[in-house]
């Protein structure tokens, strides 16, 4: 049975979700809610960072 690439799926989800955060950030900016927009930007960047780290881990697992 073929192993499911959990790490790859997870990091793809994280990268997509970071885009959702950025999209929401633009919406808050349009409503002039700058505090929420800033927090969403920070969350988006942190999510992107977690996704990239997981991608690196998945690659290092695949090619040891």
């Amino acid at each position, binding site marked *: 049975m073929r192993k499911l690439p959990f790490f790859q799926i997870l990091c793809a989800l994280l990268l997509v979700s970071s885009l959702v955060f950025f999209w929401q950030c633009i919406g808050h900016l349009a409503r002039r809610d700058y*505090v929420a927009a800033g*927090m*969403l930007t920070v969350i988006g960047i942190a999510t992107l*960072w*977690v996704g990239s780290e997981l991608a690196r*881990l998945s690659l*290092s697992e695949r090619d040891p």
Partner: protein
Amino acid sequence: MPLAPTVLGINLWLLQAVVPLWLAQGQVPRWLLGSSPLPCLLLLLGMRFRRHLWAQVVLLVGFPMLLTLTDALGSLGIDRLSPQLAVLLKLSVFVGYLATTCHLLARESLPDDPLRLPVASWVTKPLDAPPSSRKLRRRAATHAMLQLLCVVMPGLLFFAICLHKPNVRQLLRMLGSPAKVTALQATLLAAATMLWASLFYFGVMRPLKLHIGHDAALRGELGRLRQASRRGKARPQLFVAMAVALAGMAALLFFGMGL
């Protein structure tokens, strides 16, 4: 006959042989007096046949050695005949004689020596240079552009600050007097020069220099990064980013700014 070596040689002969013998008249044997013209004759003979090897040996070795005959035989033995100043004078004339003779002999060498042909008679043929590579042409073009930039940009700044009439008029209108305008122009020129030099060094020359040196530091850093990325172990950044994301989301929920 060449003037300088001959005159210096004769002077040396006079100083070294004739004058001491003349001063010590009556105390030297006759044969020594008789042999005193010998160095001068040897000098003239060497100068006349200076294109031959034996004559060159005579000029550089034989003549100076024969001049020391008077002292070497020790027949004078009078200290007042060789005061310190005279020794200094003899030494300087001797050095001058050797220098001019060597220069003369180096200039006029054997006629069949191909290296001594006049430059006008040389035939030069350009070698077929291999076509330069694309990389080399690109690099040469880059260097030419950099040189052009080094001339154009400072020239443009100079023109804009000092020569462009609307700018100068505007400065005069702002400051009121030409003296103040001149001072401001000097300050602006100095600032622009410093800024341009710094930008050119840090933005262009330093990267170019590092690139020509094959970016040793950058390659080392890349190697270290590659090693670090190959480790299958989570770095602290992962946990920090997770904590930041979770804390941010909790703060959003807490302050009622939910998605």
